[in-house]
C-alpha cells in the first residue's frame, strides 16, 4: 500500500466525522460478506470468507490425540494463523510472524474462553472419545490471502463457517481394552458428526479514528487509526473476549462505550453471517447430490 498524502488523510478523517466513508458506507456498516464452505476437500471442514477485498481461508483438521493430564474430559483445540506473502510482500519469511501471532492469540482468546473451559465458543467436552485417554485434537488453520483491513473479523467469520462445515468421523471404541493401554479405536469413513456452532461467537473490531468509531475498517482507514478494540460477542449478546489493539491510550469510559456499540453491531453481523453460511451449506449439499 502506497503511503497516504496529507489530503487523503484529511479526506478519510473528515468523511468518518460526517458518517460518509470513502467507499460510501456509514460508520457502523459492514462490507458485503460472502462465504463459501467446503473449499478444501482434504480437511475435515473448511471455509473461505471475503469482506470486500479481504480474503481469508480457514481449514479444520481433526486428529486423534491424548487429552491434557489436567483436563481429562476435554479435547484440545489449537488455532494458528498464517499471513501469506500474496497479501503483502512484507509477510514473506518472518515478516508476517508478529501479525500472525497477534491474530492467533486474539482468536484463541475469543473462541476458547477461560482456562477452565467455561464460556468457550467450542464445546471441548464434545471432542472426547475415551475420557483421559483418547480425544480429538482440532487444528484450526487460518490463511490470509488478501488483506484489506479487518483481518480478525474475517478470520473469525471464516472459522465459524468452517466449524459448521466440519464433520468429525464417528469413532467406535473396542470393548475390553485394559486399564493402562491405549484403547483400540476404529475411525469410520462413512459416518460423520456435525459440530454445534450456535455457541461460536463473532468478532467485531471497532476502530477509533479521530473521535468516532468505525466498523470493518479498510487498510487505509486502519493506517489512520489511533486504537482499535476487538470485541467477541456470541448469539446471546454476551461478551466472550476483548482485545484492545494499537498503542494509544483510551479513556475507560470510551472502552465501555465501544463495547456496547460493538454488541449492537454484532447483531447485524451474526444475522448476515448465519444466512451466508446457511446458503453456502445449501449450495454444498446441492453439489453433493
Amino acid at each position, binding site marked *: 500500500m502506497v503511503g497516504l498524502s496529507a489530503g487523503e488523510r484529511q479526506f478519510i478523517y473528515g468523511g468518518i466525522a460526517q458518517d460518509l466513508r470513502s467507499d460510501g458506507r456509514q460508520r457502523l456498516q459492514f462490507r458485503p460478506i460472502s462465504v463459501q464452505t467446503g473449499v478444501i476437500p482434504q480437511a475435515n471442514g473448511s471455509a473461505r470468507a471475503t469482506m470486500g477485498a479481504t480474503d481469508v481461508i480457514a481449514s479444520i483438521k481433526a486428529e486423534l490425540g491424548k487429552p491434557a*493430564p*489436567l483436563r481429562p474430559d476435554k479435547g484440545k483445540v489449537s488455532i494458528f494463523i498464517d499471513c501469506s506473502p500474496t497479501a503483502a510482500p512484507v509477510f514473506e519469511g518472518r515478516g508476517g510472524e*508478529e501479525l500472525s*501471532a*497477534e491474530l492467533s*492469540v486474539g482468536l484463541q*482468546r475469543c473462541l*476458547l*474462553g*477461560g*482456562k*477452565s473451559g*467455561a*464460556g468457550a465458543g467450542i464445546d471441548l467436552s464434545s471432542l472426547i472419545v475415551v475420557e483421559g485417554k483418547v480425544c480429538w485434537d482440532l487444528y484450526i488453520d487460518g490463511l490470509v490471502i488478501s488483506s484489506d483491513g479487518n483481518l480478525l473479523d474475517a478470520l473469525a467469520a471464516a472459522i465459524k463457517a468452517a466449524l459448521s462445515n466440519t464433520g468429525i468421523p464417528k469413532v467406535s471404541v473396542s470393548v475390553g481394552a485394559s486399564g493402562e493401554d491405549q484403547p483400540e479405536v476404529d475411525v469410520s469413513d462413512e459416518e460423520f458428526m456435525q459440530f454445534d456452532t450456535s455457541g461460536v461467537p463473532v468478532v467485531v473490531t471497532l476502530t477509533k479514528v479521530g473521535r468516532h468509531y468505525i466498523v470493518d475498517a479498510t487498510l487505509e482507514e486502519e493506517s489512520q487509526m489511533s486504537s482499535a*478494540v476487538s470485541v467477541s460477542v*456470541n448469539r446471546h449478546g*454476551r*461478551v*466472550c*473476549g*476483548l*482485545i*484492545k*489493539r*494499537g*498503542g*494509544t*491510550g*483510551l*479513556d*475507560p469510559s470510551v*472502552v*465501555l462505550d465501544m*463495547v*456496547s456499540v460493538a*454488541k449492537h453491531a454484532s447483531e447485524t453481523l451474526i444475522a448476515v453471517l448465519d444466512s451466508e453460511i446457511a446458503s453456502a451449506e445449501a449450495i454444498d449439499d446441492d453439489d453433493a447430490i
Partner: protein
Amino acid sequence: MATGTLGTYSPSQSLERRHQQQKRTDFQEVDWARSDGRNFHQCRPAFLRTGAASSASGSAYAEFGSTKVIVSVFGPRESKKAMLYSDVGRLNCHVTYTTFSTPIRGQGFEHKEYSSMLHKALEGAIMLETFPKTTVDIFALVLESGGGDLPVIISCASLAIADAGIMMYDLVSAVSLSCFGKNMVIDPTSEEEACQDGSLMITYMPSRNEVTQFTLTGEWPTARINEAMELCLDACSKLADILRSCLKDNASELTA
C-alpha cells in the same frame, strides 16, 4: 501415586499433588479461602527495586508473591543499519522465561505473545519523539512464574524505563483479575489462573486516565465488565503510587 520405577524426585509428582489439590478446592463455592490468605479483592504485596542490573541503562526487579521478574532497559542506542530512518524512536521489547521458571521445564514458550503485548502497553506511555533515529531495547526475564505474569512484567518494565531516564507521559501499571462463577478475584496466582472461568487484564496510566491495553477472555455480561474494570483501575492507581514511591526512595538513596 505410583512411584515404583522412579527412585528420585520427579516434578510430575508435584503435578499430581496439585491436580488433587485442585479437585479438592471447589472454586464454584461462594466462599473459599485463597491459598495465601488474601481476600478476593486484595492484591499481592509488591516488592520493587530499581538498579538490579548495573550494566544496563536502567533496570528493575519486581517480586509479587511468587512471581519474580527482572527487566533491563538498554538505550537509546543506534538503530540497526537495515532499519529505515524514522523521526520517532523505536521500541524493541522482548520477554523470555527462564527454563526453571515454571513447574514443568520449558513451559514458558507458551507465552510468545507477551513481547508484543508489552510493546503495545508501553508504546502509548513513552515519548518516542524525544529519541529519534534510535532504539530503546527492553528485555524482561521471568525468573519465576507464579501467576499474573504479564501485569508484573509491564509494571516492572515501566519502572525500569523510568530508572533509565527515558521520558514518559506517565508510569504504566497493570493488574489482572480472574472470574470464578459469581466471584471476582484480583491478582490471581497460577493455581487460580489454571481454573479460571474468565480473565481481564488492564494496563493503565493513572494521571492521564488512559487505558493502554485491555484484554478479556471468557463470557462476561456487561455489568460485570463494568464492575471488574472499576476494581482493576482502582488497584492500578494504588500500584502506580507504589511504583512512584519506589523511584523516590531510590532517588533519595542516591543523593543521601
